């Protein structure tokens, strides 16, 4: 086992943990390591992924309780020190609850869970996780969530756009960010954003479910390749 150790945090109720573990394990230069929510030590990992699922059942608000778990204190410090942190789906929700990313994720506009193949446009290649993509490139990751409707005040949205921190946007197959292509009503079709230092990225779609053409897309590989390099 060689490669940079990448920690995958398991909260009670995380259910994409194995998918992310497999995605990391399939990436050259990366080694997958479990991080249990009760731990207070990051075991020397050099990158962190918060996987999707329903941490603590999402019973208060998606991600609201996970944010107070022992491991999250360490994750926050790791991020503040510049370490690469990726939050997928419920992981994105936790990152906003923890204050590592601005805005919040509300119930989908149509009020029901949505699971489908989704076209995304890479709107920033200036993050560890998107350096292997070109700006404007279209990729396909599945979405599967009930609370993915990204909201923030206009000022925050303008700043995210202005600073190039909108990383992924919901688009149709031609690359147009239309209302029809938006699965959940997110402001400005935002699917994923970066923190100010661009080491923290959260997105609702699942690159971990796009690792092989057998399951429909392998566009997610670039995300994990970027993570492995940032953690090296």
């Amino acid at each position, binding site marked *: 086992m060689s490669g940079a150790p990448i920690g995958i945090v398991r909260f009670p109720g995380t*259910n994409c943990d194995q998918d992310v573990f497999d995605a990391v394990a399939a990436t050259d230069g990366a080694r997958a390591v479990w991080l249990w929510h009760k731990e207070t030590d990051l075991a020397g990992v050099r990158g962190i992924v918060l996987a999707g699922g*329903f941490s*603590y*059942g999402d019973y208060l608000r998606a991600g609201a309780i996970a944010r107070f778990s022992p491991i999250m204190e360490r994750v926050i410090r790791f991020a503040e020190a510049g370490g690469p942190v990726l939050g997928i789906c419920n992981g994105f929700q936790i990152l906003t609850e923890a204050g590592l990313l601005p805005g919040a994720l509300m119930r989908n506009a149509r009020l029901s*869970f*949505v*699971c489908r193949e989704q076209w995304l446009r890479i709107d920033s290649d200036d993050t560890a996780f998107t350096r292997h993509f070109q700006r404007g490139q279209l990729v396909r990751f599945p979405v*599967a969530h009930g609370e993915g409707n990204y909201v923030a005040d206009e000022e925050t949205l303008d700043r995210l756009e202005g600073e190039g921190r909108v990383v992924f946007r919901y688009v149709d197959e031609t690359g147009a960010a239309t209302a029809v292509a938006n699965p959940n009503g997110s402001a400005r079709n935002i699917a994923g954003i970066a923190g100010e230092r661009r080491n923290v990225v959260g997105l609702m779609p699942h690159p971990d479910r796009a690792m092989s053409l*057998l399951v429909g897309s392998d566009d997610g590989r670039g995300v994990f390749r970027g993570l492995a390099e940032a953690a090296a």
Partner: protein
Amino acid sequence: MTVTLPDTPVTTEVVAAHGIRPDEYERIVELLEREPNFTELGVFSLMWSEHCGYKYSRAWLSEFPSGGPQVVQGPGENAGAVDVGEGLAVVFKMESHNHPSAIEPYQGAATGVGGILRDVFTMGARPIAMLDSLRFGSLDDPHVRYLFRHVVRGVGDYGNCVGVPTVGGEVVFDDAYEGNPLVNAMCVGLLRHEDLMRGTAAGPGNAVYVLGASTGRDGIHGASKLASTELSGDSAESRPTVQIGDPFTEKLLLEATLELIASAAAIGVQDMGAAGLTSSSSEMAARAGTGIEIDVGLVPRREPGMTPYEVLLSESQERMLVVARPDQEEALLAIADKWDLPCTRVGSVTSDHLWRIVEDGEEVCRIPVAALVEEVPRYVREVSEPPYLADVQAREPGPQTVASVDPMGALEALLSASTIASKRWVWEQYDHHVQTNTILGPGRAHAALLRIPGTRRGLAITTDGNGRYAYCDPRRGGSLAVVEAARNLACVGALPLGVTDCLNFGNPEKDAVYYQFVEAVRGIAEACRAFEAPVVSGNVSFYNESPAAAIYPTPTIGMVGLLEDLEDRPRGGGAAGDSVVLLGSDGTHLGAGSFLAEVLQVVAGRPPAVDLAAERRHADLVRMLVREGRAALAHDIGDGGLAVAAAELCFALPAELGIEVELPREDGCHGAMFGEDGARYLLLVPAGELAGLHDVLTASGAPWRVAGRVTDRGLVSFAGIGERSRAELQGRWETVIEERMETMEEER
């Protein structure tokens, strides 16, 4: 509220209120060699109910084939299991949650999913797929829309949270289910052979633990009252007997259970499902040939003041009964603690063959285990064909009525009928990707295709059943459910390995229903033999009746099959110039079919005769052609006949393409377009493969013809009959359910 104190006198009225017949009561007295006390009476009412004891059905279920070289676990356990190679087995079962869903659709459906998940992971298997077979009344009815919306949400919320993909299933709409919807859920799990865990309470002296949620008053009498009587106008009052699901606790229970099985800390594990502590403890003792003693005073409770009766009969969800390995109790408790789950010792295994319940040192129940589990009454009776059958079968509309229908209009009507239309509105609410093994998910084929994790192998899964067929001819209906499942597997290149069934019927005490049941079981058994697909698990759901009438007899079949190499899966694609080949004869048979039901609005005639030998031959042929890539896609011809199959095949092609079909003749085209005759498939054959295919099919002796071709005009056309824009047909087919659900006001 009902009095449940242990010293309540057992009067004739109390016995009758428990649904126990006088002769059954006499038998109980004989077995106990005394009168039962009130708590014991409640226990017998559960264990001898149809839901737990299968008293009307068990004698007939033995007609099913249940063996075969691939069978790892046959009927009698929490779920069945078949070998899939490389040291792996799949564990699977289907179960109904019909009455709870009729009364409280969200929780009823959610806890149905929870229960079937536990049946699978209690055996040590990690659940890798869920499927749902649903039946509702017509979407024109606002209450039906309410039920449909909340059942779908309940299924989705539970499975999505636990992280098991819902990869397939079926939804049928018919007035016959208006007052009594059907919610059948199937779960498939994966394990290594050596990890198979059984629900046994072996080893006298071993400690018995309750792992998971605490016990409340929910679900008391769910199995005996709700599941084993007909629905009536008062059924809404039974809402408290519907359990409440907590998928978050289920996920913790899943991980903890798999971890404790892998660590060998447990000797036996069983879900505390229907009839809760009572059935799990007595069944585990029965399987091991032991006894069991439980102190109900030790069972963690949600509320104070619960009587032993209530603790024993509670159906609170997300609980497991675990028999610990003697020196491993510490390990068991450590695993429970890791997952923040309560785990409490409540009793021990004994050698006296008694099911003993004590509370604070006082004996509450003392019943021989065999009396509860093996001595369940079995009712078998001879019944003759009910008169309705001859009426229905004779009522078929005449040829002139049929010929007067505009065929292209009929095709449009069929494609926008809720039963045939795309179920996208449903499956987009289900996470069908999690665990990243979904190769062909919902909407892609009539069977789901999954990668078996860690291998190159594919597992195909389908659920099928046609209640209208079974109503018009129960025996053919039973066979055709199996045959349809086998056809769907063949179309994705898979060989059937095993079957689970969910037998949904009305009140078996009525002769007509009993006849339907017995005949359907025979039909299923015959078809399973023909496909060498043993029935390894299943469930019977009787009493599916509302004040209006009984439902259609609805046997639902869940079938799993194997594709050894995923490289051999259907290639898909399609280009102008590809051929469309009809394998099987041209259709003629409209009886009991979708054309009559959806277009002429009559339920009449007999379903098509079943030629099992031809079904098997053609399924084998299709599987081979798909695997070899000679057929890029295969679509069986079922509901709505050749015309619907051709349209659906067309919808799977790249967006700009169309399809052109030739019929054997232009006059009297209805049978050829809409007939549902068996053993028939449409194959998409790439231009370069046609010559080779010609040789293979001619050598096979099966009837076949080139029935059409793929065109670059975006039309679905039938030569000499008419044509329609593919985009318009497809758009309507894809959105008709969504439009009905999103634009109409919801009411209760």
